[in-house]
């Protein structure tokens, strides 16, 4: 804790380095490695070939052995750097390996077979991105289907969330009506009820509605979010009442006031909710896991989880699909980082 103490109160004069500054930058540097490292490692690994992934110790960059087509051999042959008995080194292609001896040929002179002890040769490797890790799952698995399901769920759920929650927030911020306090209490009450504790009965409701294995089963239950209502209501309360009244004087219907005056003015709050909703929906796991049991209705997260059971030995596909799954979130983050962080700091939700 004493480090914390010093850091908390460090007030250095410009140009002078206090040891707490050094400690702080060291901590931050460690943070960069620890936070970025795993994801960077994931991304780099996803471009390795299946053979490359099995290497131990693993190489840092995706490398693969260089191969060459030699006349007289149907398959491309792997290249090796060979230390010859006279001490010189040559690059040879290996035809086959017999025990501790390898039969090798010079690609320039394929007729002559050279025998080399296997400990005298090292594999020639080159930097190569195994993009097939990304392209093959697209063809071989229902990956595109999962991707589409996730996009559909995220987009539709976010639109519904924005519309119905902003309507409720509008009612709760603009009007005085009987039962308003009851409704507010109900909203506060639902804040405390996560899906984790009503998993079974929501499943029943969804079943009775005939929605099991439909994407709507994932979209609908979370559409009305008390956090969303709160966030929007707090913002709408700050809009001047005069604007609403001016619009009423201007003969606008209540729906027009909502749609043409309040919604455009609540844009900042709507944007925050939209971003949160996209994150929630894209990353949602437990509920879809419970309600989606058919492969064709899996979202990305569920699909990925299923893969990790089925494809234990096929990390090359799994890693690539993980990268694809985190890509949209990463993009959103890069562009909207400041927006998201201030949104969280202001609302205390995630």
């Amino acid at each position, binding site marked *: 804790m004493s480090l914390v103490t010093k850091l908390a109160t460090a*007030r250095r004069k410009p140009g002078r380095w206090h040891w707490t500054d050094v400690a702080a930058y060291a901590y931050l540097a460690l*943070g*960069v490695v620890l936070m970025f490292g795993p994801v960077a*490692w994931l991304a780099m690994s996803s471009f390795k070939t299946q053979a490359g992934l099995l290497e131990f110790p*693993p190489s840092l960059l995706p490398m693969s052995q260089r191969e060459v087509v030699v006349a007289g051999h149907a398959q491309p042959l792997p290249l090796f750097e060979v230390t010859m008995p006279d001490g010189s080194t040559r690059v040879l292609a290996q035809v086959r390996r017999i025990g501790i001896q390898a039969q090798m040929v010079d690609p320039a002179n394929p007729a002559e077979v050279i025998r080399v002890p296997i400990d005298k040769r090292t594999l020639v490797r080159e930097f190569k991105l195994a993009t097939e890790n990304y392209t093959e799952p697209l063809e071989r698995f229902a990956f595109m289907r999962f991707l589409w399901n996730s996009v559909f769920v995220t987009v539709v759920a976010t639109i519904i969330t924005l519309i119905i929650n902003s309507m409720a927030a509008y009612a709760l911020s603009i009007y005085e009506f009987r039962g308003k306090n009851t409704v507010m209490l109900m909203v506060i009450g639902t804040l405390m009820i996560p899906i*984790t504790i009503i*998993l079974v009965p929501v499943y029943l409701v969804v079943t009775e509605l005939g929605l099991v294995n439909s994407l709507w089963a994932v979209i609908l239950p979370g559409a009305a979010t008390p956090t969303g209502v709160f966030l929007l209501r707090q913002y709408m309360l700050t809009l001047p009442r005069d604007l609403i009244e001016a619009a009423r004087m201007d003969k606008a219907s*209540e729906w027009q006031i909502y749609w043409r005056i309040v919604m455009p003015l609540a844009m900042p709050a709507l944007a925050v909710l939209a971003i949160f909703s996209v994150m929630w929906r894209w990353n949602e796991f437990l509920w879809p896991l419970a309600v989606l049991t058919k492969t064709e209705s899996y979202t990305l997260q569920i699909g990925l989880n299923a893969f990790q059971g089925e494809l234990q030995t096929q990390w090359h596909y799994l890693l690539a699909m993980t990268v694809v799954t*985190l890509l949209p979130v990463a993009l959103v983050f890069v562009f909207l980082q400041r927006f998201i962080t201030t949104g969280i700091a202001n609302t205390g939700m995630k």
Partner: protein
Amino acid sequence: MASAEPAAPRGESSGAARLFAAPLSLLMRMIDWPMSALQRLIGERRMAYAFLLPNIVFFGLFVFLPLIINVVFSVTGGTALFPSQRPYVGGEQYAYLFDCGSFLDPNSCREDHFWRGVSNTARFTVFQVTAMVLFSLVTAVVLNMKIKARGFFRAVYFFPVLLSPVVVALTWKWILQRDGLLNAGITALGGERILFLVDPSWAMFWIVFVSVWAHMGFYTLILLAGLQAIPADLYEAAEMDATPRWRVFWRITLPLLWPNMIVVIVLALIKGVQTFDEVFVLTGGGPGTATLMVVHYIYETAFSNQVQNFGLAAAASVVLGLVLFALTLAQLAASNRKGAA
């Protein structure tokens, strides 16, 4: 609508936004017709109910109704899903759940998995909240110093918050596996490979670690906001009084940050008790039941066991709900104090 006019508003809305806006605006106009008719019928003040209706329907259908059904499930037995087909069993599910020789020893309980879940969740939550508070505090304090590129560093600590639990778990599973990066480092230093997710103690350590890794950015932000709200002149006054730095931290920073600390602690507790996603993907509750969590138990009991025991799962949900309810009350009390401070 506006585009035809010379005075069309320009500026914020980009081309893409307009592409979305056009069909939406048409839809909204179509809704306006019945809504206006309704308004003429019931008057403008009562339109509040019309605006509330969709949300109320959703809340009712997917929150309030399930809440009631949950209780019904927990006092009925059998394997049927529809409540009216389930025989009433009274407190049997709860009795079964709480049938223990000693509550401190899960093995002595009839439903030992539930109690293992409780014990694991409790241990996990305690470790996780402690580590979470500690690391987010240090990180927030460091980020609040006069450092260069603060935005970048804040982003570094924050970005895992946005990753999905599955991605987080798979990222770390790849590092922690037998031939993973970490074991490569250990063997390079001359150590022996460790099967991190197969050893019960290590598995618990890593789920705590990964969960702190994934979520500390969120709590750091809350604490950072609290730190930035402390007026600078307090520090300046302390400096004028030649107050030692450690004293400034203990007597000024910590007391003023305390409301945020409480929020962080309670939020972390609430999230910790509900932990499922990352652990489920990372360890699957294993090895054995070493990392089986309560929510995982509920999920398995209701959905993935051979016999789907909805009643028992519901009873466990009710127990979990009560714990969360108590924690939420604590949170409300804490945020009220924060408002008063």
